[in-house]
């Protein structure tokens, strides 16, 4: 599937396909033409993806073929035991987690989960967790703390679910509790935004020693669409809203609100999932290696100091 701004690439790739077919059917050697066209496509891709607008990055972050949390777990872990339920209400399918083994290292991985086909999308509630999802996540984090295993969280949500029952069961309290508790976790916590990072629903599992964003993701207090509808009474100004919110990984790093950016393959994570998995695995293992030797007290102090320094104000 191609996004609107990828149309020129799609056209050239269709042309390349035709060329292959023609060469095969007519038995003519077209290798020279093929090579030249392939070069052209690569150039165009490089140009397109190095000049993405903020809205285009939002589009990539939501690409339907983009890997989701369980894809990453499958791609980077050799073993995974999924754990369910918040021990209170039910199992929230929009939040998944469990113990995993990465290169012989045991970790707890927790993340928002979106679905790919209509039925699965509904099952996963479009990646919008209910309070029990946040409470399940906290339960798993406490388990990781008990067994002294690092915690990896993968963030990919259009927001915490704004439903009637979510309010009844304390959506606000559930997120708030996680924020406070995550600061005091004795084990290393590594948080990675792999797709959408919408507001409190994202932050609710994103308090960590290292918070990183994949190259084509967004993280902010509100989605561009909702921001547009508040400011201009319609969703039509989402591009403008995305610009105003400065919500990309590049913006967030510049504002010192995250610790790093994880490089994606050319064209986005979905274009070469294997390469993406490899890169993410490398980044995770490096972070664990850096954080593990520290004393838990030091890590907690560093975590608190980092978030305490976030803000822009003048004092006079």
């Amino acid at each position, binding site marked *: 599937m191609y996004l609107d701004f990828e149309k020129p690439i799609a056209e050239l790739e269709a042309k390349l396909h035709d060329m292959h077919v023609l060469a095969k059917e007519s038995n003519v050697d077209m290798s020279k033409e093929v090579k030249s066209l392939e070069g052209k496509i690569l150039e165009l891709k490089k140009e397109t993806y190095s000049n993405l607008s903020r809205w285009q990055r939002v589009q990539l972050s939501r690409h339907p073929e983009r890997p989701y949390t369980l894809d990453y777990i499958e791609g980077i872990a050799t073993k995974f035991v999924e754990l369910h339920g918040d021990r209170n209400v039910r199992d929230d399918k929009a939040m998944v987690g469990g113990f995993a083994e990465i290169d012989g290292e045991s970790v707890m991985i927790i993340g928002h989960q979106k679905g790919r086909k209509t039925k699965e999308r509904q099952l996963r509630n479009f990646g919008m967790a209910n309070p029990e999802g946040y409470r399940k996540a906290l339960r798993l984090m406490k388990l990781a703390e008990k067994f002294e295993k690092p915690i990896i969280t993968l963030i990919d949500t259009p927001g915490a679910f*704004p439903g009637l029952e979510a309010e009844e069961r304390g959506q*606000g309290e559930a997120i*708030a509790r996680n924020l406070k508790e995550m*600061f005091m976790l004795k084990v290393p916590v590594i948080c990675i935004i792999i797709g959408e990072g919408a507001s409190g629903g994202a932050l609710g599992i994103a308090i960590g020693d290292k918070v990183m964003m994949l190259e084509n993701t967004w993280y902010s*207090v509100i989605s561009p669409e909702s921001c547009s509808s508040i400011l201009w009474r319609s969703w039509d100004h989402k591009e403008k809203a995305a610009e105003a919110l400065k919500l990309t990984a590049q913006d967030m790093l510049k504002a010192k609100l995250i610790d790093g950016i994880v490089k994606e393959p050319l064209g986005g994570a979905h274009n070469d999932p294997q390469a993406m998995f490899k890169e993410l695995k490398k980044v995770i293992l490096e972070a664990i290696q850096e954080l593990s030797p520290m004393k838990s007290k030091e890590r907690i102090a560093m975590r*608190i100091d980092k978030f305490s320094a*976030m*803000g822009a*104000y003048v004092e006079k």
Partner: protein
Amino acid sequence: MSWYKRTEKGIVTPTEEKLEVPDGLWHQCPECKKIMQADEHSASSYVCPACGYHDRINSKEYFEILFDDNAFLELDENLSSGDPLKFIDSQPYPARVAASQKKTGLKDAVRSGYGKMNGSDVVIACMDFRFIGGSMGSVVGEKIARAIDYARKKKCPFIMISKSGGARMMEAGFSLMQMAKTSAKLALLDKEGLPYISILTDPTTGGVTASYAMLGDFNIAEPGSLIGFAGPRVIRETIGKDLPEGFQSAEFVLEHGFLDFIVDRREMKKKLADLLGMLK
């Protein structure tokens, strides 16, 4: 011209249009329409003596109600907003802040003070809804964080009075991280064994609910306050149905187990002092 003089001349002002009496001598309850002297209204903590309606009030009034003799040391009063994102909608963000500062005489949407309540030291931070809807930006987050630090330094209880529409969109990512920052400081306060009382007033929604407002050792609300995470309009659109009567009211939130109790503002100071007294 005062409402009082106009009635003398026999001109009846439609009550819906004249909820606030301009000369400040008289007050009309927006709920039961009772007319009373403004002094009488403020003496009953801005609660209607007839029907119990709690008028929305600001940090100035809460400090008057809670601090002994209204004596307190105001903390960090010189913090004001930056413009980290150069955010512009219908007007640049700094212009919006300046306009709100001029209109309200406030620097931002929260004030904090250190003083005595029934003879004991407390730090109180209180939000002002008049300032850009009580929205939480960097100044709000930083002032609350510092107020908590002050309580930690003085080893005294921290009381937070919330009244907010949630995050301040014009500070985008910076606004979001204030939820984290304030929660971090509350975790430290908690670890040090100091009491935290969160008072939720009308309205408390969004990122404020999803951070410090819900993290009290004691979560207390004023009667009838709107308290929730998502706004009622968003929820209505999500579920495609009208919301049940009383949904997201303080009474609803109490019933679902997220508040310790609801307190009449006229009883607030005594009840807080009683509670804190038992923790000593």
